[in-house]
């Protein structure tokens, strides 16, 4: 409830305890909090349960770094190249536990958490092995129509980690572009860590209350973290670094190869400023579009 102070990435991530459940990668291939994820690896915070929809690469990296015990997600891999080798090997060798979801079932589970209800009903899942081979969902009869329906129970993560375009120091957030399941996850989570491309004056945020996607009462820590979503894109800030995903795919077929990759890209990086200097591709916005003016007032 109280307003937040801006923390360093190191300090903010250190508040996450080993064994926590963390929802992240919530905007699908957009605005993935890679910087925060890599800091989890640097600090050796492990035994994590990762929760997400499609996870484009970050979950694979966290698995490769030994941080993960369990995944509750709809898809884990590399959207550019398909397989995430670290995820695949860990699941096949039973090193991590996997709870299979569809994108909608994980969205509904978090939405139920955000709404403070025990479950949400859906017409999806029935007839699939996502339903049949899971002990999570229930089939019930809709008492109004008599139809078969699936109930998806609520998930309330310990943490949601979100990367956004701009936040006030207090933790009020402007976010635009694809948002995936950020809203439900933030509503459902016990704590929210916001990494922001820019920390701005509160007046910037309060100039446009309808753009505010996360309010400070929901936020545990705010970090200013330029390029915090790289290699994923951030609307208005930078494009996707496709080559990074392809290079990662080529370089992480074995654990030893991953460890070498991580020594370079995760452990060899002291902070995000240094990291930003490593990026070779020109990802900058060269054809900006400015949103049409909107006024409030009285």
């Amino acid at each position, binding site marked *: 409830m109280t307003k937040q102070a801006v923390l360093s990435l190191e300090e903010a991530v250190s508040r996450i305890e080993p064994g926590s459940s963390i929802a992240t990668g919530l905007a699908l291939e957009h605005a993935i909090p890679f910087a925060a994820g890599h800091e989890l690896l640097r600090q050796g915070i492990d035994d994590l349960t990762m929760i997400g929809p499609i996870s484009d690469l970050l979950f694979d990296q966290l698995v490769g770094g030994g941080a993960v015990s369990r995944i509750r997600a709809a898809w884990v891999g590399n959207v550019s190249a398909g397989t995430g080798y670290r995820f695949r090997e860990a699941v096949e060798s039973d090193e991590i536990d996997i709870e299979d979801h569809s994108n909608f079932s994980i*969205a509904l589970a978090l939405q139920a958490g955000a709404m403070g209800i025990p479950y949400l009903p859906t017409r999806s899942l029935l007839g699939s092995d996502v339903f049949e081979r899971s002990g999570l969902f229930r089939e019930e009869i809709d008492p109004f129509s008599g139809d078969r329906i699936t109930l998806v129970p609520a998930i309330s993560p310990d943490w949601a980690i979100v990367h956004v375009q701009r936040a006030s120091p207090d933790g009020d957030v402007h976010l635009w572009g694809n948002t995936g399941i950020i809203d439900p996850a933030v509503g459902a989570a016990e704590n929210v860590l916001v990494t922001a491309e820019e920390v701005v004056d509160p007046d910037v945020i309060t100039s446009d209350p309808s753009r505010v996607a996360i309010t400070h009462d929901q936020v545990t820590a705010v970090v200013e973290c330029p390029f915090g979503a790289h290699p994923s894109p951030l609307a208005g800030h930078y494009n*996707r670094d496709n080559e990074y995903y392809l290079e990662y795919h080529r370089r992480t077929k074995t654990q030893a190869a991953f460890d070498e990759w991580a020594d370079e890209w995760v452990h060899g990086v002291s902070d995000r400023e240094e990291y930003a200097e490593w990026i070779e591709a020109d990802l900058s916005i060269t054809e900006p579009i400015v949103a049409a003016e909107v006024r409030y007032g009285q």
Partner: protein
Amino acid sequence: MASEYTPRELMVSAAAAEIEDGDTAFVGMRLPLIAFQVAVSTHAPNSMAVYESGVVRDSPADGFIHTMCDLPNLNRAVSATGMIDIMSRLQRGDIDVGFLGGAEIDRYGNLNTTWVRAGDDEIRLPGSGGACDIACMADRTVLLMPHEPRRFTEEVHYVTSPGHSPNGGRRTDHPAPGGGPSTLVTSKATFGFDVDGELYLRSAHPGVSPEEVLTDFPWEMNTAEDIGEGPVTTTAQPTDEELALIRAFDPDGFWTRS
């Protein structure tokens, strides 16, 4: 004479043809990203695409998109919200056609993108993403797969994306509310699903014989002729216009030239 083209370019063209003018399409990863852009630029100018990340579009992106979330796919979009909005459109029946891929398929169009068996081993794949939801709830689905016999199986190892009921009647005796698979496009042929929900061969791609296609399946597959739909045809080649568009939308051929 049509130009030279790759099998994937033909698949994109065939997938685009499955989008009718006025359709709302649910588009995921890879080839369908290109196919929607071709369709809306040619025969389906009033079609619309929704992406589970939150974007709705009714025009091609002005730049290559590796993923649905690439910035060119957001620029000048119809709207950008979140997944609950997009999936709600699907669940309430507003999606005419959805695209799905699979590592395995059976005769009823059940798809597996979760676990496959290789000898005694199980191989873990990325999982459903939104595929299970699209398969359950879209009015119809179009399936795209490389044409490899190991992918065609009597029983998929894991039903990630449900197809038709094995009891006949397509989706009549099936708990999923959508219409189920309508078309399969492989790198060698296109297939429909008959009144019982079973795959049948509709057309072979140019240079491929129908017999060659049929022997790749472990079951006795019907052809269009067998079910009274006329002879097996040759799949239409991509037009020059389509090829030009595909190569504009995928300028380095990342998705379509390899």
